[in-house]
């Protein structure tokens, strides 16, 4: 469903879309009672208690005062209703605050201050620095002459760095006056919840400039709940409003996770119910028989001669009422109560506070603490989870020469420093690519030092390293990029950025040297995404070796490459690129295809190696948890060698004599099948031996294995205590979690980045590391911790305590109820 938005047109769009009225409320004043009661009564336990309470109103059969059931029932209902009402009232207050916030909006060509809830789709909204964005806007103007503005998206995705947002090309250079009168149409898809995508088109109506279609991407939008920073003002057209914004669509109540204990309690309740029915039938029948034979003779009871038709039911129903307390009415409330206390204990724990950032751990999901103690499989991400995700540039290989191999630090390598001072062209190129080919934003601090704001830790490491090697990225002003090299300032104009995606595994920029006017393509990416596209004459053997060598050391590698682009070629390609970027369907795929057309015949410059240190206490944590009988799987997007190295260094797998590493590989179905069967065979043999056997599988083989040999792979998954899956995509991670879950294992997924979110959500328990790769994972997770080593305490201390306590409480509840009940029956 597409929407067409007429900019600044007060008549047409008035009622087509909802107003910008936020509403997170579940209830209104009128429907609170019925809706809340309905919700509570949709639970089986509550229905049961209601039935009992109703039966008790029949005074003929009630053995006890009806207040004994109605009292607790009403109390429990009142408690949960009050909690709901309180939460809803708070939501109402925060909605109201947001809705009544005043914003500047253009109406009939005049800027007016109106309440945020009156914004309509198509209105032009003006924002000043540090304003919160009231709805999803397409930027059309900023104070910056280059059309850039900075936003903080922390409320949206949890990432604290500033993001740049651009105004679309068509609106470039408009002034105040013009922006008030601007007319146009924005074509965009219907509301969705993808905060990383916006595929739209903008077409300005005459008399404005041209009537060219101008593509819009997420880069041209500022989304609700972001903050405008470092920009004096900005204005944009409202495209999604109210609950239809990207943020509004992402909101939603996640499905509640059920713990093993909960399931057990449900089962027990069912069993007790059956038992109760049996007791009722047996005792009820006995009672009726006794009454008919014996009780009639008891003259002092004065039984009437005739009975109503329901007489036979009276005694069984009385027994039913007596037995009703067999099922403890309070267990749900008490469990909720203690569970929230467990969560608090996790929040409070001093030993789980990250000493570096002073971030305490946090339990977002308060209901599943006891499941922590039941975890059988831990699926962990590597980067940022096991490692610190603090990237440091360590080694490099430029044009076949290895730097940093002796000292372990290329920045101090004399050979490299000499090469720079002597101005070796390859080395200079290499450094230029390091400094230019990225999305890092330099920002000057008050003291005058340059701070780099980057979304990717690798890029930051590269830029830092380049700066230390005298190639300093000084300024990035819209498309002009300034680099200081040995005192002289070089300027580049960035013509296009071919962005990094997890499928392409590389990124490139097309830049124009402002001095000479030469256009060149600078690329960096994973080895298999760069080396195959090297130009025909180049020998890539040394680079392959370098990559091999570095990844054996557990370093992360990137290949850098470049080539010159002719003006004509660029112009031609640029048109295609523009067209691809303005398609609405399959844009990502189209862009990738077009990028491919430029990224060929590359001259490979060299390989960088970045070190990512292991976090403190990782090997000990893994060892302890493994002793507790928990199996570990490592799922990483990294290369096989790097993954294995890291796995070795953190006790994940044991070195040769003690451990054995089997690998599943192959490019075709047959190969994968054969290697899978071989591994499975070895596994079966070695299960009886005290040997740590692990298997390695890469993304490609995994794909085939999951698709065609699911059964064999499942068996393998059950047999092996350790597995390493490298080069896996986020969805594969989630698939693996599903696989283990389908074998009835309790899984815990731990990760830190956006690529782990799906796996975290899928797993029984998701743990997020509130690390450096943003807070995405931590937000999606049930628990967020500061460091991997806290997992030990989380599982072994909090999980165990919670499990013991819940078990005690529920056993006690049932025991107590049964005991009271038996006393009553007797």
């Amino acid at each position, binding site marked *: 469903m597409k929407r067409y938005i007429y900019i600044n047109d007060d008549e047409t769009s008035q009622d087509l879309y909802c107003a910008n009225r936020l509403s997170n409320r579940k209830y209104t004043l009128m429907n609170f009672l019925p809706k809340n009661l309905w919700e509570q009564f949709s639970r089986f336990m509550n229905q049961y208690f209601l039935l009992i309470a109703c039966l008790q109103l029949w005074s003929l059969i009630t053995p006890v005062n009806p207040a004994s059931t109605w009292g607790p029932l009403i109390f429990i209902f009142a408690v949960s209703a009050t909690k709901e009402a309180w939460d809803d009232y708070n939501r109402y207050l925060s909605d109201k605050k947001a809705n009544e916030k005043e914003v500047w909006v253009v109406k009939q060509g005049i800027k007016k201050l109106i309440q945020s809830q009156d914004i309509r789709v198509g209105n032009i909204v003006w924002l000043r620095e540090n304003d919160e964005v009231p709805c999803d806007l397409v930027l059309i103007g900023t104070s910056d002459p280059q059309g850039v503005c900075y936003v903080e998206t922390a409320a949206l995705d949890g990432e604290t760095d500033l993001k740049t947002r651009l105004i679309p090309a068509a609106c470039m250079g408009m002034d105040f006056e013009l922006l008030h009168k601007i007319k146009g149409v924005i074509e965009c898809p219907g509301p969705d919840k993808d905060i990383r995508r916006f595929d739209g088109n903008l077409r300005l109506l005459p008399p404005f400039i041209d009537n060219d279609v101008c593509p819009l991407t997420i880069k041209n939008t500022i989304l609700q709940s972001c903050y405008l920073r470092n920009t004096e003002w900005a204005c944009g057209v409202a495209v999604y409003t109210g609950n239809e914004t990207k943020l509004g669509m992402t909101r939603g109540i996640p499905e509640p996770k059920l713990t093993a204990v909960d399931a057990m309690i449900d089962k027990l309740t069912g069993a007790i119910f059956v038992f109760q029915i049996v007791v009722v039938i047996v005792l009820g029948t006995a009672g009726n028989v006794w009454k008919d034979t014996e009780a009639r003779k*008891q003259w002092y009871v004065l039984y009437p001669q005739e009975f109503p038709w329901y007489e036979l039911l009276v005694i069984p129903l009385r027994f039913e009422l007596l037995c009703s307390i067999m099922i403890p009415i309070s267990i749900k409330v008490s469990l909720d109560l203690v569970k929230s206390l467990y969560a608090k204990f996790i929040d409070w724990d001093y030993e789980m506070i990250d000493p570096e950032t*002073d971030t305490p751990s946090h339990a977002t999901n308060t209901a599943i603490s006891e499941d922590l103690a039941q975890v059988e499989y831990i699926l962990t991400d590597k980067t940022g989870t096991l490692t610190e995700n603090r990237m440091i540039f360590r080694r490099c290989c430029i044009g076949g020469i290895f730097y940093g191999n002796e000292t372990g630090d290329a920045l101090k390598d004399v050979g490299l420093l000499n090469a720079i001072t002597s101005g070796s062209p390859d080395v200079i190129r290499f450094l230029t690519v390091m400094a230019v080919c990225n999305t890092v934003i330099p920002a000057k601090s008050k003291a005058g030092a340059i701070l780099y704001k980057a979304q990717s830790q690798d890029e930051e490491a590269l830029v830092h390293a380049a700066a230390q090697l005298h190639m300093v990225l000084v300024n990035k002003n819209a498309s002009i990029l300034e680099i200081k090299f040995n005192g002289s300032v070089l300027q580049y104009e960035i013509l296009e950025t071919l962005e990094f995606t997890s499928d392409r595994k590389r990124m490139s920029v097309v830049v124009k040297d402002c001095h000479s006017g030469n256009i060149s393509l600078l690329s960096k990416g994973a080895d298999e995404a760069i080396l195959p596209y090297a130009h025909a004459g180049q020998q890539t053997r040394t680079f392959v070796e370098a990559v091999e060598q570095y990844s054996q050391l557990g370093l992360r590698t990137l290949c850098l490459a470049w080539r010159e682009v002719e003006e004509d070629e660029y112009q031609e390609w640029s048109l295609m690129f523009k067209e691809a970027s303005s398609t609405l369907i399959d844009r990502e795929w189209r862009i990738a295809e077009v990028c491919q057309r430029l990224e060929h015949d590359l001259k490979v410059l060299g390989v960088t190696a970045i070190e990512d240190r292991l976090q403190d206490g990782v090997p000990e944590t893994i060892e302890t948890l493994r002793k507790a009988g928990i199996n570990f799987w490592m799922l990483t997007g990294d290369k096989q060698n790097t993954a294995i190295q890291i796995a070795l260094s953190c006790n994940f797998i044991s070195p040769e004599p003690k451990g054995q590493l089997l690998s599943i590989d192959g490019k075709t179905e047959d190969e994968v099948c054969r290697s899978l069967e071989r591994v499975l065979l070895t596994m079966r043999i070695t299960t009886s031996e005290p040997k740590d056997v692990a298997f390695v599988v890469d993304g490609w083989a995994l794909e085939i294995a999951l698709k065609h040999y699911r059964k064999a792979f499942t068996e393998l998954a059950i047999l092996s205590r350790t597995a390493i899956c490298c080069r896996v995509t986020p969805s594969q991670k989630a698939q693996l979690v599903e696989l283990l879950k389908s074998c009835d294992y309790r899984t815990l997924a731990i990760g830190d980045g956006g690529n782990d979110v799906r796996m975290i959500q899928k797993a029984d328990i998701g743990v997020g590391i509130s690390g450096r790769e943003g807070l995405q994972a931590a937000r999606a997770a049930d628990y967020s911790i500061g460091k991997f080593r806290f997992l030990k305490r989380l599982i072994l201390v909090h999980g165990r305590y919670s499990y013991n306590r819940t078990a005690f409480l529920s056993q006690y509840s049932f025991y107590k109820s049964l005991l009271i009940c038996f006393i009553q029956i007797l």
Partner: protein
Amino acid sequence: MPGSDSTAHKSKSRRPKYSQFSQQELPAFKLILTPGYVISTFIVVGLIFVPIGLISLFASETVVEIVDRYDNECIPKDFRDNRVEFIKNKQTNKSCTRTFTVPKQMKSPIFIYYQLENFYQNHRRYVKSRSDKQLQSKKNAAHIRECKPMGETDNKDPIIPCGLIAWSLFNDTYGFSVKGKDLKVNKRDIAWGSDKNYKFGADVFPKNFQVGDVGGKSLNSSIPLSEQEDLIVWMRTAALSTFRKLYGKIEDDLQANDVITVVIENNYNTYDFKGTKSLVLSTTSWIGGKNDFLGVTFITIGGICLFLAITFILLYVIKPRPLGDPSYLSWNRNSTPTPGR
């Protein structure tokens, strides 16, 4: 920590406040059941319980109790096959005389009980059929809703006291004599003080009672309920189907081998439901009436404890095992121990 001042200052809000509770560091103690503890606990319990049991049993033995079941014997021979008719017939002579000898000297006060068996005073229909409000005060005379099916007469007049319990009041009477001399039976102060003072009103007089369908004893309508102690005793319903209720007290000592003659007015109908009736004379001691159960229970429990203690000591001596040895855990027991573990 120099240098951390600024961060510590900033972080104050994020770091939760310390308390032993929040860190789960509250001092706790959990007794580990080591053989020493277990054995000594059993010994101590056994050593305390056995003497208590012996003392109770001894006290119970000093109580002299005479039980005489008379429901069968008090039916004339002609009516033995037709008891119900006999008891229901108003014309028959219900008096009967029973004699028994006192086995040991009985010191006053000697309590007289009647004991019923197979009489369900705890029947739901029965136990609910009373109006405490009506019993308490004159103004609540019309409070008969709870008394069904014995709330009002056929003329819709409220019965005082209403209900099945009062209606079925026990109506056998006993007259005692020793060596031709009548023994005085004191029927005062046989009910609870609280019942007399609070639950049964001094201004409530029986009215319309036992009119029409007669159940049990009739009451003198000029005496207030608070003085009708037989009724008060009867209305404290028994929890079990075999129960004793206090009939009166004899305040003279009885000597051993005294022959007591009791003249019983056998009025109460227990023949319908195969109930029994007994007359009980009993003295008391500090543990109450004759009751061996308490003593036997104490001795049994104490004996079991001592037995267990001895067994555990023997086990501990013959086949000791180290405390907290993980190889006894279920998951370690099955698998063969691997070297190096």
